[in-house]
């Protein structure tokens, strides 16, 4: 037990001695991991938001005034393809359903909804092909059918969302990586100062035969403490982001399908804490290897 008391005491003394550097290290870990956790959380948001569309590969829009027989024709063709196994499933969207969706999407623009009625909207079929690769061929088959206005591959819409999020993600990841490496350098530097401040102790310890781990553990604990506290701050930041996202999700608009769960938050927090701890230990190990000649 006295050993733990010893490590605890030495770690605390050292952290306090280099308080400025310690705080700098903690903050950098905190900011970089907050960015990282934030990216993961946004990623989950987008994943949930696009999940519903994931399988739908294209949508067949009928002419607004397409007569029922033409609609039935397309439906029969789709049903036949389902029977032949080329299409997994399809869903018919009536004018009323289209209008419901329309009002949801444009709920912030009541004037637009006001001036629109269900009958000016086209009916459509949302189709899930059996093989994703066949999407284009299948879509073309309906292009020339009577009453078909246009084909929209939902993928295009999703792709656009994903393009934007991918770009944002890379910007954030780059920033997070830069900040994480600087936090490693900061922690390394704190450890270097700590070994310098305690060089007499270290000399005596080696002289009387303290094991290498005994010499190193207080420094590693110091790095660990910095990493974990920084990660703790980051978790706080991620939680705040989750709260903000929560207000979006309750607005029930275009963003209705975009949400994050407590489960998402939990695993992201765990990951962030783990990375924080790892960074602290790894940085102090590098620091020890560089500054504690054996």
């Amino acid at each position: 037990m006295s050993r733990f008391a010893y490590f605890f005491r030495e770690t605390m003394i050292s952290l306090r001695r280099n308080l400025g550097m310690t705080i700098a290290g903690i903050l950098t870990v905190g900011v970089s991991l907050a960015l990282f956790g934030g990216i993961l959380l946004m990623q989950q948001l987008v994943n949930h938001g696009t999940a519903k569309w994931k399988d739908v590969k294209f949508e067949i829009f009928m002419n607004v005034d397409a007569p029922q027989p033409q609609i039935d024709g397309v439906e029969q063709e789709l049903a036949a393809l389902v029977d032949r196994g080329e299409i997994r499933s399809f869903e018919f969207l009536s004018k009323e359903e289209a209008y419901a969706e329309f009002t949801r999407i444009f709920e912030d623009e009541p004037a637009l909804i006001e001036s629109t009625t269900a009958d000016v909207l086209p009916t459509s079929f949302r189709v899930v092909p059996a093989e994703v690769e066949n999407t284009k061929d299948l879509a073309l088959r309906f292009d020339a059918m009577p009453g078909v206005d246009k084909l929209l591959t939902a993928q295009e819409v999703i792709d656009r969302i994903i393009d934007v999020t991918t770009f944002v993600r890379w910007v954030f990841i780059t920033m997070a990586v830069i900040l994480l490496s600087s936090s490693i350098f900061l922690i390394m530097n704190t450890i270097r100062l700590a070994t310098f401040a305690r060089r007499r102790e270290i000399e005596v310890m080696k002289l009387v035969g303290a094991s290498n781990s005994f010499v190193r553990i207080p420094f590693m604990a110091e790095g660990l403490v910095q990493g974990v506290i920084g990660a703790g701050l980051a978790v706080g930041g991620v939680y705040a982001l989750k709260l903000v996202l929560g207000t979006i999700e309750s607005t029930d608009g275009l963003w209705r399908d975009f949400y994050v769960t407590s489960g998402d938050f939990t695993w992201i927090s765990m990951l962030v804490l783990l990375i924080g701890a790892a960074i602290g230990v790894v940085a102090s190990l590098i620091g020890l290897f560089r500054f504690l000649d054996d």
Partner: protein
Amino acid sequence: MIRFETVSKAYKGEVVALRELSLEIGKGEFVFLVGPSGSGKSTFLKLLLRDEVATDGRVLVAGRDIARLGSWKVPQLRRNIGCVFQDFKLLPNKTVYENVAFALEVIGRPRSIITTQVPQILDLVGLTPKAGNFPAELSGGEQQRVSIARAFVNRPLILLADEPTGNLDPATTVGIMRLLDRINRTGTTIVMATHDQRIVDAMRRRVVELDHGSLVRDQARGVYGVGS
């Protein structure tokens, strides 16, 4: 206890510190290591601690070739070799008691051992009344006693002393030598590097003289200089 088999040590830049040195020191011996600065005395002590590794030849401590110890076993070697230096190497922010206890703490000795061993050893070196003082409040002789207490508290087989009296006046030196003599009588092998002619002459112990890294004299009950 200690055996050097044709040991040579060259540092980078071709400086030869030891030249084919062969020497055997038995258990319980008290050996003075003499010779001018740069004769290889410090290298001799560093090789024993495995602070340095011989370029050629073998250094054996208690029958084991210490060059072949894994780096994780070096601490074990050092637990069996106490060290005393000219500059004491005491920790200024720890009391006398804490300085001595530190040596046991950092090798993981349990508190019960520490609380019995430390007062015993402080009694041996005659510093019980100063246990709560800091090194800066002590005289040079007292500081060296603390350093000896720290080196001996773990009851090592060997005690190395590198100019332990180099910073002390003659009267204090006598006290330190008496203390080392007492420790030697407990069966501890002592190797002491020194420039101090008077103590070598007075003690009449084995004298090993080095010059430019070579053994030039090994005398059972010797004096400092051949001619003196």
